[in-house]
């Protein structure tokens, strides 16, 4: 028995050596778009520290920025409603029992605003009621006035009123002070939609861009809701204005994209270049009086070299992107 045991053990050790000697197949993970019709029970969120007081929750739809400090919690976007429980658990893990004070929406889609109603109710504006009047004591929900207008136009039967941002701003920006940090909400006019914003955490040195910057796909242009290609490019140029790399075009201001991995100025730069080049190609075709059918036929030259990297969402293909640019640039002003 002892000999059998010895032999077995030594054989296992020999196998172990082979396994140990083999190289593990480690590869850089691909940036993938959101799954369509996901199995919500199987979707998981991941929390990453970005910089300073700001963290990122990924996997609940659009990325969620979480600022945690002594005075409470501030969120940028809320993810899908179906993921709200997991998002809330992730926030609690980050913040303990600190109160959720503020939620800022960057754009319209369900992936960013879906859990507004659930998470707002988890928050508190004040510790006590006096001064609130008729307003419920829940987290403040902020968005651009155009975002509220879009939701109103779409209607309460499709977007419940509880998801609408009651605190709106209509100018270029709205300034907040949260957790001893200036937080600037900047309007991004006529970008993915007409109601987009980005959020700049000035002390933590982090920008949450919303959907104009997407690590997995070409930027979505929601033409039906006021989106424009030049608004997206101008938004990306604005991000480049705000970001300052720490050393040799790396680090410094960190960027939370609408989807995908954390980036910095260089990541936004390459994305801006790509979107601008594709826009220029479509514009050049329009200048030659080419029709949409002809522009589609000249594919792959419009987006060709970027397609292996960004044409990963069957719901938003390179062809759809080119068509949206063409439609947008040829629309009557």
């Amino acid at each position: 028995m002892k000999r059998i045991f010895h032999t077995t053990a030594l054989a296992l050790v020999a196998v172990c050596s082979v396994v140990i000697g083999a190289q593990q197949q480690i590869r850089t993970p691909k940036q993938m778009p959101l799954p369509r019709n996901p199995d919500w029970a199987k979707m998981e969120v991941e929390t990453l520290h970005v910089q300073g007081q700001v963290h990122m929750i990924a996997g609940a739809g659009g990325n969620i920025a979480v600022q945690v400090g002594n005075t409470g919690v501030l969120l940028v976007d809320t993810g899908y409603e179906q993921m709200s429980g997991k998002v809330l658990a992730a926030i609690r893990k980050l913040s303990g029992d600190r109160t959720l004070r503020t939620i800022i929406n960057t754009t319209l889609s369900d992936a960013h605003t879906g859990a507004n109603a659930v998470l707002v109710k988890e928050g508190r504006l004040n510790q006590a009621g006096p001064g609130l009047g008729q307003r419920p004591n829940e987290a403040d929900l902020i968005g651009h006035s155009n975002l509220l207008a879009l939701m109103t136009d779409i209607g309460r039967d499709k977007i419940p009123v509880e998801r609408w941002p009651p605190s709106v701003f209509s100018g270029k920006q709205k300034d907040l002070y949260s957790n001893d940090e200036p937080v600037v909400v900047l309007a991004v006019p006529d970008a993915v939609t007409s109601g987009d914003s980005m959020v700049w955490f000035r002390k933590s040195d982090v920008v949450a861009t919303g959907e104009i910057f997407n690590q997995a796909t070409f930027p979505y242009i929601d033409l039906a809701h006021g989106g424009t290609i030049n608004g997206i490019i101008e938004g990306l140029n604005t991000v480049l204005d705000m970001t300052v790399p720490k050393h040799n075009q790396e680090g410094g201001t960190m960027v939370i994209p609408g989807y995908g991995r954390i980036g910095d100025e260089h990541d936004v730069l390459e994305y801006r270049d790509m979107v601008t080049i594709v826009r220029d190609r479509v514009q050049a075709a329009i200048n030659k009086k080419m029709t949409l059918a002809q522009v589609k036929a000249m594919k792959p030259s419009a987006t060709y070299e970027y397609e292996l990297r960004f044409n990963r969402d069957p719901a938003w293909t390179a062809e759809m992107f080119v068509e949206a640019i063409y439609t947008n640039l040829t629309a009557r002003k």
Partner: protein
Amino acid sequence: MRLMTLPPEFITILIRCPELAGRAGVLVVCINCKSTARNELRHRFFGRDNGAAGSDLGRAYHQMFSAGRTALVLPFLLAVLLIPSVPAFAQIDFTGVWNGNTNAEDGPERAAGPSLVEFLGLPINDQARQWGLAYRPGRLSLPEHQCQVHAIHYIHRGPFAARIWEERDPVTHQLIAIHEAISTYEQKRTIWMDGRPHPSANAPHTWMGFSTGVWNGNMLTVTTTHVKHAWHRRENLPSSDEVTVIEHWVRNGNVWTHISVTEDPIFLAEPLIKSEDLTLNASPNFNPFWPCESIEEGERARGQVPHYLPGTNPWVAEYAAIHKLPQEVTLGGPEQMYPEYRNRMKTLPVAVFEEKAPPSVGTSSTPTPPAAPAGGRGAAPPAAGRGGGAGRGGRGN
């Protein structure tokens, strides 16, 4: 870890200990130990005074030997089977200052750098080729591009010097990491040798990426992920942010042979394999200072990105014609890495270059900037110029 001679009842296995923050170590499995043997082993490891109580390894040891033999050994061995990769102890010391050999096979990459549309010998795919043909050097004159550096799969071909040192556990002397400070662009990297996992898909990417290493005999094999979008050939052939770089470090005396295998699912049709030799410098002098501050190089419309529209790059044939090469040869591709391609080269006509003025940079969406005075950095390019409105934008390294 102390060196010791173990009784034959013990089997030593290299494992990664989660209890020790993922560090590698030697665990000892006792096949048929008597209590006296166990005690002897414990005393050899931890001394007779502290026993196993005072350290994580000690607690792990106690847990290991407090269980029954069969309940312990088989599950443990099965667990080891599931350990995918295990860093072991350093075989070769790379510590020191190393200098690149700029006169070797990689000389053309190091000094003046490649010409425009000089893609030959690179296993690029058609997407990379199109990217390169649309590339206009003025793009590198944009302030945000000016301080862009060589990424990890290219930097060993810069005018390169590196200082390498080891980081070891102060108690066990186990190798935790190998650090490499690279003179070019003041880059620093850490090669983790403690078996830690690579970051998630949502983590940031950097020029140097995230590296882990293992020893294959005397060769160090390094795997790097999470690298930024950069270039396979300086400036005009892109590399994606999904590259994975496998390096093999070999030392023969005072020569460090650095071999890299770059996989890029976006821009390479086959892995790109390169090698460089570096020489150990007896002097510890090392110039790591490479400050970069971007400046505005001429006026341009906000958001303008210099590039050539498809089919409008006027320089495609220049390099090929100067060197009397067929055009196809300069456009790269995986077939060019193999000797058989020489036969095909002989059947192709030599390229002809007809110089013509490059198209303007702007489009109707991005108006052409006003021309600066003749010869100025922001001037529209002369007929013979290659730049995108702001000089050639090339790098001398």
